[in-house]
């Protein structure tokens, strides 16, 4: 009998999964370790509130089962049968590996192995062609050739900036000095983005291999992965990947018997968003407060411990082995214009089917939102999508058919960012969303430079004033002036990009902003100070549903007679509005 590989995905990101534990226990009890192997998977291609089991090689996917059904599922695995009632329909997101599937519109390069192999097994990674690229680089290519290949591929940094990866490598290689450092930025702090986590937890060896190739090309002996402490499973798996790679002679001294030696270590982040900025990240690896430094000197000249250094993020590193293996021509044939290859997006917010997708550059927002993620939740109307998180901007409906690539996004006032796509529907208030991002940026400002520290706070105060109903038309100009100063004078990208969401929302949703300022109205009801709930006496039948729901008991009235809301005590929570089945409560 063929060995069955059982992947368990559990929504719980911690290390314990009742489903996984149960299956492992059963396998051990029955001594079936020879024929069944159970893994904890971190990404299966689906997102669900309940655990998912995937069984390879048959590729059977079970969802929506209860703990007590596990016995039956286990028996079916043992007897190689299928339990029909838990079977999950083939989902658009489960595209075959590394192959363009016309129907699904996905193309997997970065996520090629994620969910298809045991992330803790180096043997499996090797059996799927892993470390072949490293071998090819060391024995068939000289460092300059590797750099040329990466440059020609057109790969650009996937962390947000979009700087040419090959060029960055070349600049660092050209610097004099024997000691240079290679760094992986795995401090994924952008709210709403979790693609790096999927790669780190699902395919850690690809990062190790990519970094070893980078180190070979640039001439580094030492490297660091700066990983978020909030991702304990990623840390555990990276540690195992590094130690296994050492055992196999793929890291350490004289890799694969060659002259090339390279050591890789982990350093943990500690919850500071600014540490995603490269100079701040290097300060943090050095064990200091993560304050950014002015440039020049650039990290390629004087980076970690003042030595030439270069940083790429997780997704960029995951692209390296396939490019080296298949060549720059293959990679540059994917994508559009100056944006080559694919991009992984974490689509969240008001979509039916949130999750990770990997698509070729140039795919449109419509394809992403409607074809891959099932459209808007509750069939509401699409309003906007936010890209680039707190540094990016909103994209209104009129651009929904625009191609998603670096240049197009820049031209409409947003940016690629790390790949978080937050979809908003008509019930989301743009001013309120701006307030959220500003709060985030103000909280995360390191405080070193004045434009970011003071400007961010002033912007937040102005926006809060508007959402409180105290906005003035003059505030718009003030916001623009402060934003301009921040963009020009802040020390690092955090401060320079803090105003972006506000500026883009003010541009594309000017009407909504003006409504808040002039009419003191919020059409979505999100800005509670601008909202008043009222009962229309003609429609109210006196069912008391609203009075029962009201948390402050400010709705009064006799049964079967129209009720009244006491505005003095109303906290504008909207519970009554949601409770009324007769549309008798209006929001104004």
């Amino acid at each position: 009998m063929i060995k069955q590989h059982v992947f368990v995905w559990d929504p719980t990101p911690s290390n314990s999964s009742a489903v996984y534990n149960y299956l492992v226990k059963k396998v051990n009890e029955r001594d079936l370790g020879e024929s069944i192997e159970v893994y904890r998977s971190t990404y299966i291609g689906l997102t669900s509130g309940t655990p998912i089991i995937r069984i390879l090689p048959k590729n059977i996917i079970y969802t929506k089962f209860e703990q007590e059904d596990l016995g039956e599922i286990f028996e079916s695995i043992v007897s190689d049968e299928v339990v029909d009632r838990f079977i999950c329909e083939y989902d658009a997101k489960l595209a075959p590996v590394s192959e363009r599937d016309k129907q699904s519109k996905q193309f997997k390069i970065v996520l090629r192995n994620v969910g298809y192999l045991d992330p803790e097994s180096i043997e499996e990674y090797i059996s799927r062609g892993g470390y072949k690229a490293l071998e090819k680089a060391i024995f068939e290519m000289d460092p300059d050739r590797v750099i040329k290949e990466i440059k020609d591929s057109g790969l650009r940094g996937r962390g947000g900036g979009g700087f040419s990866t090959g060029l960055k490598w070349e600049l660092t290689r050209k610097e004099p000095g024997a000691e240079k450092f290679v760094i992986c930025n795995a401090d994924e702090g952008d709210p709403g983005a979790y693609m790096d986590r999927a790669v780190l937890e699902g395919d850690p060896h690809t990062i190790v291999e990519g970094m070893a190739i980078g180190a070979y090309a640039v001439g580094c002996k030492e490297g660091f992965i700066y990983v978020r402490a909030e991702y304990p499973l990623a840390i555990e798996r990276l540690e195992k990947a590094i130690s296994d790679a050492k055992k196999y002679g793929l890291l350490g001294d004289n890799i694969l018997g060659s002259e090339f030696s390279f050591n890789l270590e982990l350093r943990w982040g500690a919850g500071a968003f600014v540490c995603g900025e490269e100079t701040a990240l290097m300060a943090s690896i050095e064990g200091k407060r993560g304050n950014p430094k002015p440039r020049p000197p650039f990290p390629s000249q004087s980076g970690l411990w003042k030595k030439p250094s270069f940083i790429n993020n997780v997704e960029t590193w995951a692209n390296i082995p396939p490019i080296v293996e298949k060549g720059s021509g293959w990679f540059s044939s994917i994508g559009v214009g100056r944006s080559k290859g694919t991009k992984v997006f974490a689509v969240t917010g008001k979509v039916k089917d949130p999750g990770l997708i990997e698509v070729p550059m140039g795919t449109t927002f419509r394809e992403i939102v409607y074809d891959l993620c099932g459209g808007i939740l509750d069939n509401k109307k699409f309003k906007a999508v936010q890209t680039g998180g707190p540094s990016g901007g909103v994209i209104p409906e009129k651009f929904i058919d625009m191609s998603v690539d670096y240049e197009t996004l820049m031209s409409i006032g947003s940016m690629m960012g790390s790949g978080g796509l937050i979809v908003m529907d008509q019930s989301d208030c743009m001013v309120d969303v701006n307030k959220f991002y500003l709060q985030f940026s103000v909280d995360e400002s390191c405080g070193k430079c004045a434009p970011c520290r003071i400007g961010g706070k002033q912007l937040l105060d102005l926006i809060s004033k508007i959402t409180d109903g105290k906005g003035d038309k003059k505030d718009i100009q003030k916001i623009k002036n402060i934003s301009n100063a921040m963009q020009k004078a802040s020390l690092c990208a955090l401060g320079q990009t803090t105003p972006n969401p506000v500026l883009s929302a003010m541009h594309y949703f000017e009407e909504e902003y003006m409504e808040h300022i002039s009419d003191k109205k919020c059409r979505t009801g999100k800005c509670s100070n601008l909202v008043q709930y009222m009962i229309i006496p003609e429609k109210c039948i006196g069912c008391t549903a609203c009075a029962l729901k009201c948390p402050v008991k400010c709705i009064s009235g006799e049964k079967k007679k129209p009720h009244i809301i006491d505005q003095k005590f109303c906290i504008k929570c909207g519970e009554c509005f949601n409770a009324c089945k007769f549309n008798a409560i209006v929001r104004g």
Partner: protein
Amino acid sequence: MKTQKDVQLDTRLLDFIEEWKDKKGKEIMILHKVQEVYGFVPRAVAIEVSRMIDLPLAKIYGIITFYHIFKLKKPGKFKVSVCMGTACYLKGGNDLIAELESILGIGVNAVTEDGKFSIEIVRCVGCCGLAPVILVNGKTYGNLKKGDLPNILNEYREEPKN
């Protein structure tokens, strides 16, 4: 000023410091270990660590106060972390905080009188598909509504209040 008593550091921490003492960029890693062992960074321990790795106490506090993860106060026995990533925010993370505050009678970053619960806000925990999300001592609860919270908290209460 209160004088600090000498403390005997936990052996797990001592071993870790020994291993990391000569490595580059050890400071944050050692503080992570302190927090793992004690749940927060007690002042007495910080003083001892400062002496052992020969780093001024002010630098150590500079690091602790810069990074969100390090805590100077002891958290509750059950740490309730509310995710305020964008997806959770849009789907009502704020309401969850307000409800928790009213159930537990404490604000964010505070501990209940019996030391059992504390509330904190965390950045995106990376499961936006389940928004809004809270974690209780690392265990995730997703797709939450306000009404789900009392039951979740009751799981951790030995005897119900009131």
